[in-house]
Structures are given as C-alpha cells and as structure tokens.
C-alpha cells in the first residue's frame, strides 16, 4: 500500500456530486470516463472508441466493447446517458449539475419544478453508441468529457444512490478495498481493479488516502516516511522542505490562480474612473516580490486570466503590461482617475481568514499604500463561507480576493464562468459584448490553434477593461518518502497516482 494525503470527502462519492479536492482525487481513481488526462495534461480516449463531430455541436460517441464495472455489469451507452441525466436533474441536487449546461434540454431539467426528467440532447443509439447535441458549438466539450461528472454509473447506483455514495462501484483503475475500505475521517483504501481496461493501469498494489485536517501533521508523517506522497507542503515548511527532502522535493506549476475582484457597485470603481483605478492598482502591486518574500516562490506573477500550465497559454498577450509593476504609471493613472472624481475613503481588500491569505493580502495592501499613498488595508472575514455569501449577494462593498482552479485543462474553463455576461460564477458582474463574441467564436473554432488565437484576443479585451486584477499563478510544492519513486505532479496539482511505484 502507498499512503498518500487526502481529506474526508465532503460529499458522498458520486461523481456528479463531488466538487472538492478530497473526494475528487478518490472519484478519479474509481471511475473511467470517455477520456482521461495523462500526467503531461494530454487527453486520450479511455472508454470511448471515437468521439466524432464536424461542427463542435453534434457529437456521435462510440464506446469500446468489453468494459465492465467492478461488479461485473457492462459499461454501455446507457451507463453514460443515465448518469448524466441523473446529475443534471435539479431534484437530485447534484453540486456539479452546471457541467451539463451545454447539453440541449438542460434548462428543462434544471427548472424548478423540472419540465423534463431527462435531457433531450442525449440519445442512446445502441449499447455502444450514443449522440450528444449541444446548444451551441463548444470546442472544449471534448476536454470536459474527461471530467468526473461525465463518468458512467452502473445500474446498481440508481437503485439506492445514498448507499452507492458510501460504497461506489466504478470502472476505473482502482476499486474499494474489501472490508472496511472507508474509515470516515481517518482514511480510505483502494486496490487495483482487475476488470479495468484503460490506459492508466496502476503500477502499485493500492493506495491509502490518509485524511489530514492540516498539512503540518501530514508533513511530519512524510518526514518520518509514514506518508509516501504529500501534494501540498504546508506554509510552515516551505522555507525548509527542499533541504529536508533533497531530491524528493517537487516543484510544479498548477492550474490555479488568485484574483482581486471588484463589483461595479463599489464606490469609485464604476465606468472609466474604475477602469483607471483598477489599472493603477494592478501596476502598484509588486507581484514578483510578494511571491518571493511571502510564498518563497510558490506564487508567480500572473500573466493573464488563466494559468501558465494550460494548452495555448501566451505570457505576452497584447495589453499584459498592465500586470507589470510600474509605480510611476500607477500614480499617473490614479491621478487621471482623480481628475474624474477625487478619491476618498480607504481601499479595503476582503479575504477569508481561514485560508492562510492574511500575509499576502497585507503585503498587497502595503505595496498599494506605498505606491499610491492611499489608505489600503486587508479586511478579514472569519470563514470562506461568510466572504462568499457577501460576494454572491453583491453586498460586499470592498475589493475581494478570489480565484479559480481548473476542473479540466482548457483556458475556456477559466474565462467562461468568470467573465461571460450572466455566467453564474461571474462574481464581478462583468459584461462586454465584444468579449462574449470572441469567446463564442473560440468555442466554435474548428481547430484548437484557431481557438487559442481567439481566446488571446478575448483576454486582451479583459486586460483592457480589467474587471478583475490577476495576481498570482500557483506553483505546487510537493514531496515524497524514501519508500516510493516515479512521483509526478499533474497539471492540477495532484500526484499521478497510478504511476507511483514502491522502491
């Protein structure tokens, strides 16, 4: 058994209801979808034989024959279609239901009360074929198919989803160990699934996800070789972990970033005045120095609104100089804004105190104060929840920290929820028809390269309007014990679990 760090899943282990890291890392071991993402972030077909489309809107999916779940039942077109329909239906209250949004008929199953029980855009042709119709062309739908909510479910699941969530039966590289596999709040053990036929077969005899409530305890276990892989080095050890672990220390960029958001009802941040002020603030932040000093290099200055690890990322987009530290220009822009309406009051940055954000927010406020000579301070909220409540209800009345972590590796997944007009996670209420048009065009592009070009143009629009100030990209610090080798961190900051090997 290889011991890896984890945390008690917050929800039952149903793929469409798992939206956090603790459950996600386990669900991805237990299930195999149409496609999978390898350690380099490249996509491969898994259960899918082929995914055919000519217009990015109408898909015909063919499954490989012979796949079964670990209970012996076959994986068929129904396994996928039924699982997606279950996940999308509002009365099932699945936290990931938004992922089915592009599919025709989604709004009917999400109505309250629902107007239909299943999505009309999904049709089973026969056991190995089904078709998917989307509302609009969506080039990254092929990437999304690797994401957990699109995993298939066996018929057993629908008989008693509650029981299934406690003891899921999947078709992935691992299955639950026999006996007491899931000791709640303590650990969960998976062993190789003999019936798995995909491209990521385990190179170990099983994994034990040990649940930690803090990374400090996990780090101590790693030092004592009680824990084999730790994917997050705690803040307290960042300065010394390379010395402690030597060549067993890993540093790898991950698809997560940190933003500073502004809602349009915030005084002095509407219209042209607001745009100038946000640009000034952005140029007043010495990102590189804060990343070095506070995070020991585990945060690097953001170059766009996505993440440096994603395919198509371009660090030199037109307009990205607004993210450079430039005190003189910052002061000039701030004075220009003052000419429209003079600044008054203090500039507050809201953050949640339960997430270890205080140090860098204070540093950010310092940087702003020293450059613009305004009263900039951090405004702590006790919990993430309290901060989110005010952000969601648009009552925060301050700038606030937020960020995005990719669910699947495409830039579109960072830009659509956050900035398209009316998107549910558009916390800053941004709306620009030009940006919307460019993103729609990027989704409808016929090749990825063409799509990336359009995404770049869309980001230039964002860099000009700067509804949100990108601050950092994350560098993941991880480490492993003397017992294992071949530990590689993937694009989303998790270990490539299947390939970890005992020495």
């Amino acid at each position, binding site marked *: 058994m290889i011991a890896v760090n984890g945390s008690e899943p917050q929800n039952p282990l149903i793929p469409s209801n798992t939206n956090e890291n603790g459950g996600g890392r386990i669900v991805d071991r237990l299930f195999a979808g149409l496609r999978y993402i390898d350690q380099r972030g490249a996509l491969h077909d898994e259960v899918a034989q082929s995914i055919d489309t000519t217009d990015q809107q109408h898909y015909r999916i063919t499954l490989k024959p012979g796949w079964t779940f670990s209970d012996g039942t076959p994986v068929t077109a129904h396994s996928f279609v039924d699982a997606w329909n279950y996940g999308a239906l509002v009365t099932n209250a699945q936290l990931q239901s938004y992922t089915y949004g592009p599919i025709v008929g989604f709004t009917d199953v999400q109505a309250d009360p629902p107007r239909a029980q299943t999505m009309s855009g999904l049709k089973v042709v026969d056991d190995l074929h089904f078709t998917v119709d989307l509302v609009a062309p969506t080039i990254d739908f092929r990437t999304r198919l690797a994401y957990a909510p699109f995993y298939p479910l066996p018929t057993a699941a629908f008989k008693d989803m509650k029981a299934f969530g406690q003891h899921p039966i999947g078709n992935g590289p691992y299955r639950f160990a026999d006996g007491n596999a899931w000791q709640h709040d303590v650990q969960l053990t998976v062993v190789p699934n003999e019936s798995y036929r995909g491209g990521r077969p385990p190179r170990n005899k099983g994994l034990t996800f040990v649940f930690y409530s803090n990374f400090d305890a996990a780090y101590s276990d790693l030092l*004592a070789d009680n824990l084999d892989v730790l994917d997050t080095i705690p803040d307290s050890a960042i300065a010394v972990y390379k010395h402690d672990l030597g060549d067993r220390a890993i540093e790898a960029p991950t698809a997560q970033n940190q933003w500073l958001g502004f809602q349009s009802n915030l005084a002095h941040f509407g219209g042209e005045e607001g745009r100038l002020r946000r640009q000034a603030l952005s140029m007043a932040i010495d990102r590189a120095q804060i990343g070095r000093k506070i995070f020991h290099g585990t945060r690097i200055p953001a170059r766009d609104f996505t993440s440096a690890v994603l395919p198509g990322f371009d660090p030199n987009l037109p307009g990205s100089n607004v993210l450079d530290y430039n005190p003189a220009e910052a002061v000039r822009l701030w004075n220009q804004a003052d000419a429209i309406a003079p600044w008054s009051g203090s500039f507050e940055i809201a953050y949640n105190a339960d997430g270890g954000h205080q140090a860098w927010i204070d540093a950010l406020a310092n940087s702003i104060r020293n450059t613009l000579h305004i009263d900039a301070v951090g405004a702590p909220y006790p919990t993430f929840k309290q901060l989110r409540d005010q952000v969601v209800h648009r009552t925060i009345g301050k700038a606030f920290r937020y960020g995005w972590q990719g669910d699947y590796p495409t830039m579109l997944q960072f830009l659509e929820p956050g900035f398209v007009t009316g998107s549910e996670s558009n916390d800053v209420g941004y709306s620009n028809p030009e940006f919307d048009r460019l993103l729609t065009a990027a989704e409808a592009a016929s090749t990825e390269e063409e799509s990336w070009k359009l995404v770049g143009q869309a980001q230039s629009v964002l860099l000009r309007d700067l509804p949100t100030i990108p601050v950092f990209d994350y560098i993941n610090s991880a480490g492993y014990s003397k017992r294992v080798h071949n530990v590689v961190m993937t694009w989303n900051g998790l270990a490539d679990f299947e390939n970890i090997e005992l020495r």
Partner: protein
Amino acid sequence: MAWYIARRLLQMIPVFFGATLLIYFLIWKVTGGSVTALAGQRTLTPALEAQLKAQYGLDKPFWWQYLHYLKGIVTLDFGTSYSGRPVREVLARAFPITFRLALLAVFFEAVFGIAFGVVAGLRKGGWFDSTMLVLSLLVIAMPIFVIGFLAQFLFGVTWHLAPVTVGSDVSIPRLVLPALVLASLSFAYVLRLTRNSVAENKDADFVRTATAKGLPRRRVVVVHILRNSLIPVVTFVGADLGALMGGAIVTEGIFNIPGVGGTLYQAVVRGEAPTVVSFVTALIVIFLLSNLIVDLLYAVLDPRIRYA
C-alpha cells in the same frame, strides 16, 4: 445526597435547552441558512440552491428548524451532515476518541501535578520547588502548538519513540504523547495549586497537632495535609475534563487524531448547524456532569461540606 443529585440533574434540563437554543441561534445567525460554501468557488444556480435548502430544511423559519432539531434529539436523531452521514454516527465516532485522549490527559495532569506539587509544597523554597516553579512557568508561557510540534518532532520524527501522528489506530499507547502535550498546561496549574495549598496547610495547627501526637509522617502528609489541600485541585481537574475535550482541537490537529476538534472545526467552517449544535451540546453535557462529580467529591474530601 440522592435528592441533591436529582436536583442537580433536573437543573441540567433548562441549561441544556438554553444552551442548544443559543448555539442553534448563533449558527443560524452566522450561516443565515445559506448553502453557499457547498459550491466552493462557484455560485449555485437558484434552482439548485432552493433544492439544497429544502433538502436540509434551511428554507424554513428559525423556530421550525430549532423545534425540528429538538424533536429529532428526543428520538436520538441528531440530523444529517452535509456529507449524508447521520450526525449521531459522526458523534459516536469522534467522541470516544477525544474522551479517551482527555481522560488520559487528566490522568497525567492529576498524577504528576499532585505528586510534584506535594513534594514542592513540602519543601517550599528548596531547589526542587524552585525548579518546578520555573518549569511550570515556562510551560504556561508556551503556546500548546509549540509544545506539540516540538514533542512531535523530537519524539516522533527524530527519535522514533512515539508515533508521529495517530491516524487510524487510536489505542492508548499511541495516545500517550498527545495526551502529555494536551495535559502540559493543566499540569503546570495543578502543580502550582497543589504546591501552594500544601505549603499553606503544612504549617496549620491541625498538622502540628497530628505530628505532635506521634502520627507517622506518611499518614500526616496523605491524610491531613493532602486531603485538605485537594479541594481547589479537584475543582480545577474536574472542570478541566470538559475544557480539555473542547480544547483538544490544536493537539488533535498536530497529531492528526480523528476526534471532536477537527470534526467540529470543519462543521463550523461549513456552517453545518446540526453537527455543530450536537457536538457543542455533548460537550456541555460532559462539562455539567464533570462539575457534578467534582461537587460530590467535595463531601468525600471534607465531611464538613454537606448536601441538603
């Protein structure tokens, strides 16, 4: 005596209701019946939010929720956590572990605290007394997480004398180090309380009388000095069991013990009213019971204290 116990138990009922109402109200105030945190960085669609609120009864008014919760308690149904597990199950898993840890800590603090305190008190002003006073001051001054990390690093990581973290095997031997860490602060207080009390009593008239009538030294110390010195110590130790159970959160975090601390912390952060209220209520009951036991012990230690 029986009447006294019955009266004390009856007094617990309004305390119980008052406390649960207060906690429920506070949690409800803080969360406002919101499920925002479930969505993480995303925002729930209105339909999904409504569905989730209905599922957890959060769409109802405060009074309905509270009464519904009380109704559940009568049938020992404490509600369901957001992860779909019955809170009763979460309680039944976490509490025995922390109770074991806290009892072990109380044992250590009482045994070592009283033993060292008696020796220090009897030799007031001697080198042992001075050393203990300085050491206990040091322990009181140090935050518990410093002691915890230090102990973990030295005994666990460096010398391999104790498990680094406890994890799935919560047997007594594995809990010794965390219990010692948890007990350290109270140990210092017990030591100082005992020492002062003993130092005061050893010069009392009744002790001089006992010594004068030729009683062996051992009997003088145990029956006459110690017994009379223990009342403040017992008060402290008894009240400490409840405090240790609630305060184990730091120690449990350091040693990764799946007890009350971590579970309660997660529940507070997520705003899971049923879990938080049930956990805190259980802590209150333990606190009340240990206080009752303390009061009953007074009579054993000092027969002049009578209950009517």
